[in-house]
């Protein structure tokens, strides 16, 4: 092995090249994200369905089941909405898998793979577009919550902090579902594979009912997974009380998942042609 010595000029040049390539990667990501958002706006059915499902859950749990669910605190709707927000972004992440497998099926992904663009942009552009969609849907759900009697007793700041955790979590798991989407060249199959996972995580968590209402073996799983951590952190912020610990745990989950899932997705993408 020979040692490679670089002159100051070479160091500067490689630094410039690195800055340029980061800038191009960001610009490519923005271009792909823009394309995905345009696609989303032009197939509004997908957006409507992404919103209808959580709305129905609000109606179901607020009015149909809510009376039978006993929660600590004054009213069920304030307990429910943090769960709805978590559920909304968890199901939103299914869209990442569906979108990528759709791109795989139509062949646009093959074209992207043969362009001199930054490789990260396909995944980055997809997850950023899905983040934007999540922001929109979560905003709509907040409005629906308020219409259903949600009052966010600890004020707007606490609510915004909780929603920040929510979309951050959504972004992290989008990367996990990205790997899934890249492995299945059929959007229906991707959806079929992704939805049960989301159901499992959302319904074993304390999203809709207190964990104490579940049998011990289920609690053992339900209280040790990221959706539960997210819902607890949101409730701590929205309903008040010592929130620091729960928020840290949720942030740790989201950060850890983002790191692991992003590495996994990038590796899946890089290995696609092998």
């Amino acid at each position, binding site marked *: 092995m020979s040692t490679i010595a670089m002159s100051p000029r070479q160091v500067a040049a490689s630094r410039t090249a690195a800055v340029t390539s980061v800038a191009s990667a960001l610009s490519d990501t923005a271009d792909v994200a823009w*394309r995905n958002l345009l696609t989303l706006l032009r197939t509004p059915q997908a957006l409507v369905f992404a919103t209808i499902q959580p709305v129905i859950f609000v109606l179901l749990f607020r009015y149909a089941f809510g009376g039978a669910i006993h929660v600590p605190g004054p009213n069920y709707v304030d307990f429910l909405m943090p769960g709805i927000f978590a559920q909304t972004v968890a199901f939103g992440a299914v869209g990442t898998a569906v979108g990528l497998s759709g791109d795989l099926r139509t062949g646009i992904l093959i074209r992207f793979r*043969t362009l*001199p663009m930054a490789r990260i942009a396909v995944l980055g552009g997809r997850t950023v577009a899905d983040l934007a969609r999540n922001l929109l849907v979560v905003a709509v759900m907040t409005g629906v919550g308020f219409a259903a009697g949600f009052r966010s007793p600890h004020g707007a700041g606490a609510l915004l902090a909780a929603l920040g955790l929510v979309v951050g979590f959504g972004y992290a798991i989008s990367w996990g579902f990205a790997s899934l989407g890249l492995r299945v060249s059929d959007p229906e199959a991707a959806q079929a594979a992704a939805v049960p996972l989301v159901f499992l995580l959302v319904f074993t968590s304390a999203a809709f009912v207190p964990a104490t209402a579940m049998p011990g073996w289920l609690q053992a799983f339900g209280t040790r997974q990221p959706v539960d951590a997210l819902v607890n952190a949101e409730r701590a912020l929205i309903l008040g009380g010592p929130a620091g610990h729960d928020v840290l745990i949720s942030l740790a989950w989201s950060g850890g998942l983002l790191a692991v899932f992003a590495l996994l997705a990038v590796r899946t993408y890089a290995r696609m042609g092998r």
Partner: protein
Amino acid sequence: MMSKPAVVEARGLRKAFGEVQALDGLSLAVPAGSVLGLLGPNGSGKTTTVSILATSLRPDAGDATVGGLDVVRQAAQVRRVIGLAGQFAAVDPNLTGRENLRLIGRLSRVGRRQARVRADELLDSFGLNAAADRLVRGYSGGMRRRLDVAAALLHRPQVLFLDEPSTGLDPESRFAVWDSVRDLARSGTTVLLTTQYLEEADALADQVVIISAGRVADTGTPAELKARFGTVVFHLDFGGYEAAQAAQAALASAGYQPQRDGADVQVRSATGSGELTGVLRALDGRASDPVSVAVSEPTLDDVFLSLTRGGEAA
């Protein structure tokens, strides 16, 4: 003729998908500025070859270069000099034609302004101006394919890969795509196109490589291949058995080798459809005129049959 250096070269490419050996030691070379037709039936490995050369697939063994750059180790540089269009490389149905081209132009790193300029130029030269601002999902198959080819040209690639450019197109759209390919070849672009149709390879390619089961089965210019396999077949229908018999006798005495099946007489020609005049002249005065005449090109099946038969005979 092979004095020009090869711009695309593949040596001993092998690729398996599970149990299926898609490529089994394929080698080919495309001289600079020429059009190579990769001819073969479905499943013969055409798309796999193009995918490897266009860097979207890695070979299990063998190596390939485009413009002297290795398609695996220097994939990023290869992508700057190639364009890919066809069967499996698509455009976005939910964007307009113009949006598609601008997006792909920007991602091809030609710069934002140049992407706009090139998009407009290409929409114009591919006859898509009127549809430029309509969503691609409303395009006809032919328009979509033309946009697809345009999308491969935004960064003025040195080498263009076209995977079955006219499969599924109506004749008019097919000829439009052919014209574009000819224009590109004239402007110096090296083109590698895959096709299932001998006719298409004949119309566009300088050199044809016939592949079968992931290997090169034969190679030559279209003229050479046609001389080897390419007989045009005239199907003459005489409407009745006796008329057909008379025609068969007349043709045989004129030096043809007619084959009769009921009221139909078939004559094969090595020189092409121009021979029909001679065939009809041989009938003149000696047999009645045929009720109908059909001319068929030799199909790829004929070529493969000849190839395998030739192999047995040799």
